[in-house]
């Protein structure tokens, strides 16, 4: 008996393995127990997937298998229109026409259809359909029962795009997973639930594509999650701070997004997403430095424009962190760096200003940050009034009162605007900008150079789950550069990021023939 059980189990495992490799060609066998076992194997670690058996009340020997994905279906409809007829209808007999009888007489859905292959079942189940497995039949029945949220929440405020999907995650974990499942109709998408927080018992879900994710990264993540010992998880940032590399670094080592399309894109590159119940922000990892400058819109716009935008963002970051420090260094220490007409212009503006230049810059940057912070927390209507008061009245008045120079107002405005180009880096910009300013106010240009060198070395040493954030590779090739500074045409992106995905081939061998 034992021997037979293990032999049967091994046979099933082999069949599941074979199915995973060649899902399209394998058909149902007609043995309900075997079919259910195979599907359980296929959907292993896909916890939202429900596989259950139901019996007819009037014929207890008549047992059906149901396969569907929780959160993706309309529960009420499935209960009333599928489960109830199957369980309570009289006169259903176990015969060779059972499938047709059910399809035409018992469960009359507007688009019920037969399916013979496992691939059809997997696709249907992961897209919110209910699959009915019928004993003794090599046909399964698929009923369209989608009930997933089509537009759960509005577009995220901090990730707005002009083109492309406008959906954003909400606070419901199951609904958020449905957003993802709707985009990835494959059993390769694995979703593993966990519970964190001693008192909050918050559900989190690890999502990844099994054929792409690197096992060592997944293992590292699981180990780091295992050591989280806290009473409550209220947002994804709680997890981020616990598991990130270089806890004191102002640079991100884990990505965040509220957009389902972004998460889908990351998973397709072999990354792992962490969903947290109650939080619309999803964590993605590993995270590369260049991801700070990548916007989901880059892939929805022509690549020329996307490349231009990306270069602008990089320039914006550089300007945002260096402009105040550079201005201070050349204006208060290394005047000879300035062309004479510019020196004269700045010097004329500086006449009769009572404060030292360093103090003037620090104070104006602080004022800008005060206004920005106040503007974020205020209602939109008051926020615009605040902008007028801050930008026009305060700035103009300060210049006219000879408290600050107008050149500095331009510098602060430039710094502020360029900083807004890269919202993902607001923390990094804040820390790096002020640290460079301190270095420049002590040593001038040498200080600025040292400061930049310090942060550059830090960035080169920064890792995200074992993956270097900035990789300096002498043997650069096109595929490594295709989505960094430039955004190459999608048909030229043949490979995934080298250090992240297990399977680096993204695109088939087909070539453009026209």
């Amino acid at each position, binding site marked *: 008996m034992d021997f037979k059980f293990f032999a049967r189990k091994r046979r099933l495992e082999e069949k599941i393995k074979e199915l995973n490799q060649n899902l399209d060609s394998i058909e149902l066998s007609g043995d309900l127990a075997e079919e259910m076992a195979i599907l359980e194997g296929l959907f292993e670690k896909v916890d939202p997937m429900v596989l259950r058996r139901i019996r007819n009340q009037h014929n207890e020997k008549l047992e059906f298998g149901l396969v569907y994905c929780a959160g993706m279906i309309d529960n009420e409809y499935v209960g009333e229109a599928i489960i109830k007829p199957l369980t309570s209808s009289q006169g259903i007999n176990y015969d060779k026409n059972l499938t047709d009888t059910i399809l035409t007489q018992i469960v009359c859905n507007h688009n019920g259809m037969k399916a013979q292959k496992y691939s059809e079942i997997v696709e249907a189940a992961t897209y919110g359909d209910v699959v009915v497995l019928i004993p003794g039949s090599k046909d399964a029945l698929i009923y369209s029962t989608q009930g997933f949220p089509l537009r759960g929440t509005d577009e995220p405020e901090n990730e707005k795009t002009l083109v492309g999907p406008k959906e954003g995650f909400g606070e419901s974990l199951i609904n958020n997973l449905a957003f993802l499942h709707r985009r990835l109709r494959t059993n390769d998408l694995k979703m593993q639930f966990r519970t964190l927080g001693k008192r909050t018992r918050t559900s989190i879900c690890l999502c990844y594509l099994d054929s792409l994710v690197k096992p060592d990264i997944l293992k590292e993540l699981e180990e780091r999650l295992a050591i989280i010992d806290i009473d409550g998880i209220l947002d994804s940032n709680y997890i981020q701070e616990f598991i990130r590399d270089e806890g004191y670094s102002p640079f991100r080592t884990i990505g965040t997004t509220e957009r389902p399309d972004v998460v889908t894109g990351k998973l397709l590159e072999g990354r792992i997403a962490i969903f947290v119940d109650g939080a619309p922000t999803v964590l993605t990892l590993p995270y590369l430095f260049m991801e700070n400058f990548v916007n989901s819109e880059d892939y929805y716009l022509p690549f020329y424009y996307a490349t231009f935008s990306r270069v602008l963002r990089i320039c914006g970051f550089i300007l945002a962190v260096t402009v105040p420090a550079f201005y201070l260094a050349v204006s208060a220490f290394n005047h000879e760096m300035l062309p004479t007409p510019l020196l004269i212009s700045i*010097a004329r503006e500086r006449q009769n200003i009572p404060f030292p230049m360093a103090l003037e810059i620090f104070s104006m940057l602080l004022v800008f940050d005060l206004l920005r912070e106040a503007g974020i927390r205020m209602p939109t209507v008051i926020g615009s009034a605040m902008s007028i008061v801050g930008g026009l009245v305060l700035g103009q008045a300060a210049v006219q009162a000879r408290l600050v120079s107008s050149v500095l107002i331009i510098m602060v405005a430039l710094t502020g605007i360029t900083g807004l180009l890269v919202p993902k880096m607001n923390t990094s910009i804040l820390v790096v900008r002020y640290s460079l300013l301190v270095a420049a106010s002590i040593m001038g240009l040498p200080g600025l150079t040292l400061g930049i060198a310090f942060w550059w070395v830090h960035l080169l040493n920064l890792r995200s789950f074992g993956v270097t954030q900035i990789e300096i590779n002498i043997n650069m090739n096109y595929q490594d550069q295709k989505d960094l500074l430039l955004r190459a045409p999608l048909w030229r992106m043949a490979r995934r990021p080298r250090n992240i995905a297990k399977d680096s081939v993204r695109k088939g061998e087909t070539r453009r023939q026209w």
Partner: protein
Amino acid sequence: MKAAGRLILFAVLALLLSGCTNYLDLNRLEIVAGIAIDRNEEGYNVALELLNLTETDPEGALAFQVAEFSGQTIPAAMENAKGRLTKELYFGNLQTIVISRQIAEEEGVASILDWFMRDSGLRETSMVVLSTAETAKEVLEAKGEDMAIAAFAIEAIVNPPEKEVFQVRDTMLYRVYNAIHIEGKNIVLMAFGVNGSGEKAKDAQDQGSGEEKAGAETEGDSAGQEEPVLGVSGIGLFNGDRLVGFLPQENLNALLVLREKGMQQTFAFPVSQGGGYATFRVSRIKSERHMKETGGGLTLCFDVKATGLLIQAPPGLDMSQRDAIESLQQDATAFMKEYLLTTAEYICRELKVDAIDAGYEVYKMDGRLWQEIKGDWDRLLPQLPIEINMELHIAGTGAYKAS
């Protein structure tokens, strides 16, 4: 903790290494745009052109003032300035250094330039020019025709953004300094005068320098103006670091071709077929200088290859005929060859100045020979045969219709 320790160490080292010692706010700077150096009985007068950042002149331009300080040496004069000025003198954006003709002639410019090069606060790309006015200070006090501040006006004339005439390559402080210290090389510096100071320029011309026309032109152009106006008054020729004379205006273009190798200049030449004059502008020119051994002696050769764009042809010349174009080209080539040769011989034989760096060519060819003859070079130079090999192509003739 380890990282925090490193950070503190970094901050402490930064403070210890710098200590904010170089901090100098812009509103504490006295920006010096130009320096003029004159000799007096006891030492030097140093005039500084200081920018007045708080005021503008009636025309809205930036105001300036010229302050003069004296001392036994130039650094001493600068020290005296500190006691009279409330702000710190700032030479980092110094545009122009004007050296008086008297100093250049009597004691040379090497020691003055040496001091400027040693001072780390000075910009080494400042322009060095000569003054043919009574004093160098007069040049700084004058105005440019279209620019009030003299130092800026001189810098704009000497170092124009376009390649035009009056562009002597070695006018920046560090280049002049380097040229003085290269074996066999001699510097040339542009000279500036002021209307009303023509007497001095004429004196220079009387000594065989040929400055008369340049000085007179400057004087004439600005006649009737109330305020003194500065202008180019010639090119000063040096032997070593000492001024020995000035080059006449008509030879300026030739000297620039022979020395500076590539300038966009305009030349008018007589046309043999039908008479009259034609004009062409050099669009590309390459002048290579070398020393050639001929029959036991040396000959200084210039291989000049140029392309000129015809911008004016004499009336009556039929440009549709090939022979007319060839004749025009021959005339232009002959003119240029004669012009360059005459100038080179004038400089070497009459002015007896090695302004075309013949000695440097000897030094490059045979360093030992140069060491042997350099003491006698002033005597040998006038006897040096000069050869001009000219290749000139006149382009743009097709644009003219047959008359």
